[in-house]
């Protein structure tokens, strides 16, 4: 009889950071102990899409993952790239896909990263965990495994991810948690699963799992009609904010698309998580399976690549702060309601993904919480004058 495998603990420090505001008003980001400053030349974490292959065809997939993309990075190329990243001082690595575990060298890539001193985490749909993979992972100190779960009910989850996926994902959650891995869940909300919000929160709390929450945006495979309307998004924000501010025994992790200004409790708590600007390229840097570098995994739309590792060195891409330039050039200007908004100088339009994927113009955020509140308030206070 063989005993159940146990995860090797990862002794890396947690991810706590410190933000300071410089005299010029710029936010600066440091490791919690102050020993490292994160900059565009030395981002906090590298997110590496090791393959576009995926066994599922999720309706909302931003990456349009499925079959292998042309010119995917080989393991040897990934090794060289990891060396470059370490030379910049980066020591946090997140492996994504497609489905990362589908990469034929998945465990080998983890070994390459660990040998170089990276703290490794990865995102998975959880449907491909078999005994050998579980044993292999148990033998390695993995910092965090994040599993995509879009519904507690099989119907909601499989409406998005396809038949048969729910049971496999739930089994992976059971097995990974039983083995003692640091585990969290991630949910992207659309009209297809927003009704699952309370059930998902309850599940996370009952299982002691941290929960990363975001909105599905209209890019990749995701059709616009299934995405949330601004009003539904406001409702989602209120629910997430209520959980975020409640004294729950888990961490609720709202992503930056939810960090919008609001006048009201509890929504204004999410505004408190906004870091003064999009931190794509500064805290996280994303590398696609074809070598393209973008500020963030969510920026999966044309014209957002700042370089390609098949042709350029990471030190050049980071050293020239290309991500910052891209964000400032494409998203730095505001128009319409946002141009005169009292929050505008602080939010800068909010998450570029929402601006680009969900709004008519990338200079005016129709999903802003404050914008909806302002509209509602002006209509009530000036019923004969309010516009829009």
């Amino acid at each position, binding site marked *: 009889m063989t005993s159940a495998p146990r995860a090797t603990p990862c002794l890396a420090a947690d991810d*706590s950071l410190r933000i300071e505001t410089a005299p010029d008003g710029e936010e600066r980001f440091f490791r919690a102990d102050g020993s490292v400053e994160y900059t565009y030349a030395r981002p906090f974490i590298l997110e590496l899409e090791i393959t576009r292959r995926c066994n599922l065809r999720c309706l909302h997939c931003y990456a349009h993952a499925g079959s292998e993309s042309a010119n995917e990075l080989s393991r040897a190329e990934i090794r060289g790239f990891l060396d470059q990243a370490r030379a910049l001082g980066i020591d946090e690595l997140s492996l994504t896909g497609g489905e990362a575990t589908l990469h034929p060298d998945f465990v080998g890539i983890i070994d390459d990263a660990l040998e170089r001193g990276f703290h490794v985490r990865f995102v998975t749909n959880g449907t491909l965990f078999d005994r050998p993979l579980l044993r292999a992972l148990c033998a390695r100190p993995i*910092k965090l495994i994040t599993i995509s779960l879009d519904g507690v009910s099989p119907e909601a989850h499989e409406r998005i991810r396809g038949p048969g996926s729910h049971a496999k994902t739930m089994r992976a959650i059971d097995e990974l948690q039983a083995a003692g891995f640091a585990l969290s869940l991630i949910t992207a909300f659309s009209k297809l699963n927003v009704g699952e919000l309370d059930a998902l929160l309850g599940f996370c709390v009952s299982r002691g799992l941290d929960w990363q929450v975001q909105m599905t945006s209209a890019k990749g495979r995701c059709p616009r009609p299934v995405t949330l309307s601004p009003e*539904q998004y406001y*409702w989602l924000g209120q629910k997430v904010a*209520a959980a975020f501010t409640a004294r729950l025994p888990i961490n609720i992790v709202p992503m930056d698309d939810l960090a919008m200004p609001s006048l009201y409790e509890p929504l204004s708590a999410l505004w408190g998580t906004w870091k003064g600007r999009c931190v794509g390229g500064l805290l996280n840097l994303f590398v696609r399976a074809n070598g393209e570098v973008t500020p963030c995994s969510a920026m999966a739309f044309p014209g957002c690549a700042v370089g390609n590792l098949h042709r350029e060195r990471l030190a050049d891409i980071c050293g020239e702060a290309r991500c910052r330039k891209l964000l400032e050039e494409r998203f730095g200007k505001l128009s319409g309601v946002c141009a005169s908004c009292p929050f505008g100088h602080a939010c800068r339009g909010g998450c570029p993904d929402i601006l680009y994927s969900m709004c008519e113009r990338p200079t005016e955020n129709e999903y802003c919480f404050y914008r909806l509140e302002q509209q509602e308030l002006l209509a009530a206070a000036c019923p004969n004058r309010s516009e829009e």
Partner: protein
Amino acid sequence: MPTSPSLAEAEALMAERCFTESIAAFELHLAAEPQDLRALLKLGICHLLNRSRGAFLDVHRRAEQVIARIGTLPADVVQLYELYRGLIVRVGAASLVAGTLVLNQGCTESKLADAGAAAAPAGEGADAGRIEHRPQHRYSGGVRLERQAPDERVALPPAESSRARKRYGVGMRLKVPADGK
């Protein structure tokens, strides 16, 4: 209906979202007509929309003084006043002004307390303690950060914050069907 050029201008500027200019025009009008409760309440709403929560609450205090002076709430202002009172709850400042709200018709301290209790999650008392955000927010692509210096114009003072944040769903007006469709 506007009764002075500055009031008409103030209301127009407010509708155009020029809140700073609108505030100045409202103040000009109020200097001439300090008892104009409607203008006063709209001034407060402008302050709120302009991210000046403190000024919004100050205006409420001014409005209370006017109401105390005139003895009753004019019928044509009731709706606006109700809106204002609702805003005080929604911004999480009810505890700061509860003492003055009891002076007015249809609004008592107990009603406010009921509103808070109805919005609170089951099992949480009125003073359930302060909120703690644990530092180690890990997620798939990096970290979550707590801002060390939240915006002073919108942040709540700590004690009030604790009370407000434990509420579960204050201001949830917008609904989607359970199936999300």
